[in-house]
């Protein structure tokens, strides 16, 4: 997928997240993961680190070698995506207390990734 498509998908998912309410912490977290992944791919494509056919699906599915390489491009974004992914087992698949706070944290992490991505927009 090309960078512009990742941006459009991420923004569409963020508009959908805005329709979630206080009881929808799972989908806020999942939306943060989905949109965050698109923004990370946008960053990697914009910087010429990966091509459209090399999209990241989950940070934990990357080889150690690729993760190290991508962190050179934007460690903060990759680490934020990994942190969102780590929230999922307890609060999306699980029933651990504190789901709404976990969702708020996931959305803050998404905000960091988006901010880093949008710094690259002038490169378009």
């Amino acid at each position, binding site marked *: *997928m090309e960078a512009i498509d990742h941006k459009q*998908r991420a923004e569409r998912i963020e508009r959908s997240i805005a329709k979630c309410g206080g*009881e929808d912490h799972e*989908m806020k977290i999942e939306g943060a993961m989905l949109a965050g992944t698109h923004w990370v791919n946008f960053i990697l494509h914009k910087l010429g680190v990966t091509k459209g056919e090399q999209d990241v699906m989950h940070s934990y599915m990357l080889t150690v070698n690729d993760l190290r390489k991508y962190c050179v491009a934007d460690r903060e974004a990759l680490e934020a995506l990994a942190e969102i992914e780590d929230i999922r087992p307890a609060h999306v698949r699980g029933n651990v207390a504190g789901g709404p706070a976990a969702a708020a944290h996931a959305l803050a992490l998404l905000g960091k990734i988006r901010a880093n991505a949008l710094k690259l927009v002038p490169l378009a």
Partner: protein
Amino acid sequence: MNIASHLDKIDRFEKLRARLDPMEDFELWFWSTMNAGTNAVNAALHHASATKADDVFPTQPGVYLVPGKNGELVSAYHAPGDVLHVGRPKIEGPLPEDVTTMMQAMGVIEHHRDPCIRGEREPTRAIADECDAALRQCLGLLRKRMATPGQAWKP
């Protein structure tokens, strides 16, 4: 995870799906659909005693977050509890026909996941309708199982 928590999540995913537009919000609508169905399959598997309803949470097939000595969650190998997706992991052994049918319905939904969510296939109304029908079938079978006389689930 325990059955009551699965049912609670299904209920909330259903309410959210009703607020989302299948086309404008396809990704989150689809993800809510898939999560509702996966929770239904997990609840049915627990009800059929095919998997454990322990409050442990999968991180990858065979690995779960489990309570540690001080109450914190730690990663550990664990007997099959919740599946992440139908087939991850595959649940061995003969399963009741209704649960197998639920899994097949989830296969219809999962078939669209990577092309439409990760890939470049544009979602269509037909795809959304197909996913919606599959979830309806899945949830219908779960409700029937939960209400079966003699096996009716009580919280």
